């Protein structure tokens, strides 16, 4: 018979140790904090969701604003990661859903009764908002969501590198492709439009003279010019002139700042960091026209606050949104201009923003006003994904654009059917 192999371990001491650990379990479990209890003079509490902004100081700022609110203790969930949508959507299903959250205007949230209309808090100041920001949040005459910031997206470029190559600012998509080729050296790539190349999706469609959906919510992106623009993208992708697999994606200024690329698609938020790193060696231009007669395009992204209609205390949540994003102009200004640059949706704040009055920021505001277009509330997340698949297939994988667009038509059609049937 084999001898016990662990005679060195005294049985009783092990059992004692095990019992000790077992006893610790529940204790530690009690000590676990749920993150929602305690604090707050009034005993009421709210939870807000934000995606993780990259600019230094943003998280502290949001928490600072929240702390100043007297009516409830507001807990901030700062959601890092690229899948903010998924996390938000799955959290909304549970009892731990946020009471207020930031997102983009999307119809399915309204149709499913997930977000509450906010007319009563917006109406008094409606005239002070950029009309486009009101329009993009309005369904059947009701306004859902308060815009916090507008984020125009366009191309940044290194002036010195374009000058050295003897190039002007590209005036068409073909010229952009030519510039990318001329600017590529063995250390620097000509152009960076994001690792997955989907960040320009809105602008690409608009610059090709098309739109996501038409006025009657029918597919409008499936045109010959869009297909032709996708072919240019494919040509650029295979040419070796694009920066791909960069460690930080398009939203981060580091590709341009680190000298990995000469031109980069990015948002206005990155402007302070880029200016600090590159000084005067920095210019911007809109997405150039990709079809005869089309206008250049700038995508006005941004973030808005929504109130969870299924939350525990909807009135309190609305009161908080009103307090912070309608009444507290100081915080709104700090939020739009204190970290990255964003355009304040409130006209009164935008007009007094000296940071945006001169130089490159002023040029960006001009692009925003002249060429900027906003989200279409009917173009929902599932449709956004469907068009991202078009780019993945037609540009990176090399499928025929027509086929890729046909596949998207089917998916988008299914969504439209569900929303408008």
């Amino acid at each position, binding site marked *: 018979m084999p001898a016990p192999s662990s005679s060195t371990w005294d049985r009783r001491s092990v059992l004692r140790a095990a019992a000790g650990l077992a006893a610790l379990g529940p204790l530690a479990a009690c000590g676990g904090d749920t993150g929602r209890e305690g604090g707050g003079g009034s005993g009421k509490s709210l939870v807000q969701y934000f995606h*993780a902004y990259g600019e230094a100081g943003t998280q502290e700022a949001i928490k600072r604003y929240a702390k100043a609110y007297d009516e409830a203790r507001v807990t901030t969930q700062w959601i890092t990661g690229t899948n903010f949508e998924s996390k938000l959507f799955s959290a909304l299903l549970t009892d731990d859903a946020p009471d207020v959250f930031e997102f983009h205007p999307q119809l399915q949230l309204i149709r499913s009764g997930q977000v509450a209309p906010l007319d009563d808090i917006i109406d008094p100041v409606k005239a002070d908002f950029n009309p486009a920001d009101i329009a993009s949040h309005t369904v059947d005459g009701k306004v859902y969501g308060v815009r916090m910031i507008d984020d125009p997206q366009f191309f940044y470029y290194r002036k010195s590198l374009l000058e050295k190559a003897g190039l002007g600012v590209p005036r068409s998509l073909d010229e952009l492709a030519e510039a990318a080729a001329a600017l590529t050296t063995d250390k620097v790539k000509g152009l960076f439009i994001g690792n997955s190349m989907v960040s320009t999706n809105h602008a690409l469609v608009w610059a090709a003279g098309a739109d996501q959906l038409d006025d009657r919510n029918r597919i409008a992106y499936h045109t010959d010019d869009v297909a032709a623009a996708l072919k240019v993208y494919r040509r650029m992708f295979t040419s070796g002139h694009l920066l791909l697999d960069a460690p930080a994606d398009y939203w981060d200024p580091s590709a341009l700042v680190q000298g990995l690329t000469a031109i980069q698609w990015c948002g206005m938020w990155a402007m302070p960091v880029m200016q600090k790193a590159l000084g005067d060696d920095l210019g911007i231009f809109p997405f150039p026209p990709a079809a005869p007669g089309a206008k250049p395009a700038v995508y006005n992204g941004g973030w808005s606050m929504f109130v969870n209609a299924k939350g525990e205390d909807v009135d309190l949540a609305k009161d908080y949104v009103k307090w912070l994003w309608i009444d507290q102009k100081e915080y709104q200004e700090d939020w739009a201009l204190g970290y990255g640059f964003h355009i304040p949706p409130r006209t009164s704040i935008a007009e007094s923003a000296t940071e945006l009055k001169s130089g490159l920021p002023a040029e960006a505001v001009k692009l925003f006003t002249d060429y900027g277009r906003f989200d279409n509330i009917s173009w929902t997340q599932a449709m956004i994904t469907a068009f991202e698949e078009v780019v993945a297939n037609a540009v990176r994988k090399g499928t025929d654009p027509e086929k890729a667009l046909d596949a998207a038509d089917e998916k988008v059609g299914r969504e439209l059917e569900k929303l408008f049937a």
Partner: protein
Amino acid sequence: MLGSAGLHFATGVCALLFLVPFYLIVRNALSTDAEITGEDWQWFPADVRWDNLTELFDDTTVPFGRSLWNSAVVGVLHTVGTLLVCSLAGYGLARIPYRHADRIFYAVLVTLMVPAAVTFVPSFVLVSSLGWVSSLQGLVVPGLFSGFTCFLFRQYFLGFPRELEEAARVDGLGYWGAYWRIVVPNSLNFFAAIATITFISGWNAFLWPLVIGQDQEAWTVQVALSSYMTNQTVNFHLIFMATAVSILPLVLVFLFLQRWLVQGVAQTGIKG
């Protein structure tokens, strides 16, 4: 046939390849971003920057110290709980005669095949309706009932020498008594091995802590790490310092417990 020198050389080359990722972690963790992203490859930083370590723990956007502590607590509770629950079940399935034991065992086996991501949404809703989101219970309890660990214990106990237990029974001990007085004390090696494996898998788990750890205060170290990777601003030196710190405890666990681990893996019963 390879000579002894040739064999050692070939093994050495393979070992070097296996160590490359560790080298990169250390190099990047101790460099500045400029050195990492520079035009020319730097094999080692000109100035070793230990400051990166303090910068990591001073950074307020990601509570890294807190996440290390959470991982340690979760790792220990997860290990103790899993060992307790699964070893008992494994023993019961292996040794206690019961009419439906086979069927129950198959029901356990089936769960091995259903991947976590399949049941992940309903699990999340379930745990959330218990109010366990962002809590220690939520992180630990759902993971205790591992079909795989139960399976390993069962296989092990099948091979446990029956004579030992029978001697205990002659002394008048029931299953329960025999288990605690004879079986467990004679299986400590195996328990230590499973404990190590369980701790590692607990420490390295990602998907579940990601969903449950809604609140930063409840983040585990893997969630914190992934947040560095997907954060909008990429700070290489911080990311890799965080990676180094997250791996270090396990490397230590490994080096100290390797003997049990190797023995345990070898005798997990999956040897055939």
